């Protein structure tokens, strides 16, 4: 029975933490003036489709590559369009007065150079591209746990809180480095008295390595009856 309970708890954790990050074959980069460490896949799509033009209050200017593997991967992973469809979309905006054509360059190096020198610029490059002078943004998405949790450390549940039936769920945003280590953790919500313990445990977690930084939102439950 005890083993069954442990299995169920473990399964619950796996479901909870497997929520929301995925890896792509491209890195998202931004000019250092962009005040963000991460961006959601939805925000990224909205920026490139010119539905919005700011990120965390910073005006953002997207740049696209004319062709190449990074361009193909970006279209497939984030926009869900072919290059022809994207070009038609931009042309519709441009020729009806409803938008502008994004800056278009030829290579990863050109993207990095343009993003580095242009305030508010955001772009994408292949995972192996050198990204000196720009900021790499983690991308979060709700498409499911492609970033596998390898090592989990259980949070400390203070005895006096558990005895007094003080529990609840702490929600955290976890920034995971490409090598799988947790860079830092932000508190999103939940019982603050338990947050420190949850964050300290999650800082020690280890995920599978990926091509770029990612973020995910997780929930850490504290059940007094556990």
């Amino acid at each position, binding site marked *: 029975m005890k083993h069954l309970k442990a299995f169920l708890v473990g399964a619950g954790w796996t479901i909870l933490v497997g929520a929301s990050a995925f890896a792509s074959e491209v890195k998202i980069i931004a000019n250092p003036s962009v005040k963000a460490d991460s961006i959601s896949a939805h925000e990224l799509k909205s920026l490139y489709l010119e539905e*919005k*033009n700011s990120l965390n209050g910073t005006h953002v200017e997207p740049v696209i590559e004319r062709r190449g593997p990074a361009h193909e991967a970006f279209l497939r992973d984030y926009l869900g369009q072919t290059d022809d469809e994207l070009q038609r979309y931009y042309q*519709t905006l*441009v*020729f*009806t*007065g*409803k938008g*502008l*054509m994004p800056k278009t360059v030829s290579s990863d190096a050109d993207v990095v150079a343009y993003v580095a020198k242009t305030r508010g610029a955001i772009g994408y490059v292949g995972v192996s591209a050198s990204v000196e002078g720009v900021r790499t943004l983690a991308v979060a998405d709700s498409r499911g746990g492609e970033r596998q949790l390898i090592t989990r450390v259980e949070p400390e549940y203070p005895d006096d809180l558990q005895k007094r039936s003080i529990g609840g769920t702490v929600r955290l945003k976890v920034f995971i480095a490409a090598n799988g280590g947790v860079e830092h953790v932000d508190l999103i919500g939940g019982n603050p008295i338990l947050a420190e313990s949850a964050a300290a445990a999650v800082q020690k977690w280890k995920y599978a390595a990926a091509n770029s930084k990612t973020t995910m939102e997780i929930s850490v439950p504290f059940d007094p009856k556990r």
Partner: protein
Amino acid sequence: MYRGVLGLIFVSLCLCQAPMQAQDFTLFDRDVQIHGFASQGFVHTSDNNWLTMNTSGFGSGEFTDFGANASTQITDKLRIGAQLYDRNLGGLGRWHPTLDWALATYKFTPWFGIRGGKVKTVMGLYNDTQDLDFLHTFALLPQSVYPTDLRDVTLAHTGGDIFGDVPMSKRFGTLSYTAYAGHRSDSPYSGFAYLVNNDGAVFKSFGGLQYGGDLRWATPLKGLLVGVSRMNEDLTLDFLNGATDVRLNSTSDWTNQYYGQYSRKKLVVDAEYRRYWTDLGIQGVPMIQEDVRGWYVAGSFQIAKHVQVGSYFSHYWLNYPISGLLSSGTGHDYDKVITVRVDPTRFACIKLEGHFMDGYGLPDQYPNGFYTANNPQGFKPNTNALVIKAGVHF
């Protein structure tokens, strides 16, 4: 005629090979984008002359258009731009350039923005892009809903829009809305002006207040879009009949349009229905009533990297008070169309299109491509047409 054919060949052979790029320059520390397009067509018909061209002999190449625009971002939220457009389609346009659009857009948030100036009217799937040949598989959009000779009726308004995208959730998709109000003014080289001028009168103006909206829903089913548009108008048609200045005012004028589009990988399927009602009269006494209903179903498929094929069935008819007296071919048009589009480069396209039409509408009332002035011998009930069109854009 031959000039048009030569133009078609020239556009096809020369410009298709040009590595065309958008031109940018800096003005007052702002990047200004320049874009443009041009197309040249040729039309041959089996019987009736079509679209104010003499198409039934050798054919006609009086089917040219081009445009260019400049736009720039002034501030994070403010953008301005303008586009000039010129066309020569038989007796329409006549090489007189027009200000296609010229507007300022201020976007407060993704879900609320405003734009003002001369604005292309958002209506149905293609109203605002109907002149942009390179965006469409077909050389001519379904004429039941997008009659190219009568395009001035719905194309643009001088006024303002509010617009936005309202994301709901992944479960419910995105709603996009546009509401507008402004003034419509038909060109003296438009279809209705051509009709009036060839009816022994002298066209002075046709236009007035225009307002309405569009609501479209990108459904959670990937690739499926549905929408509805509405336009109301308060119009005045002013012309000289001999020495008499005649003014017809609309007592009721509206358009409803319903549409849907489904795209999946290389397949795109469109369907639209439009009903247009107008009642023009003098001091409330009806003189001209039109109740035009059109619909089409179109499909296109990309069979190779640079090749698309498409087909549509387009139908419109008029509920005319004396429809029982109409002769065969009158009051309707059924148009079956097949198309091949080839894109030899990223900046050029060539289209070959066949139309098989039954009917010719009501030429003296709502011409929609067929005019008595171009067919003095009378109309035949059926018309087959070959359309060849080549275009470039940058």
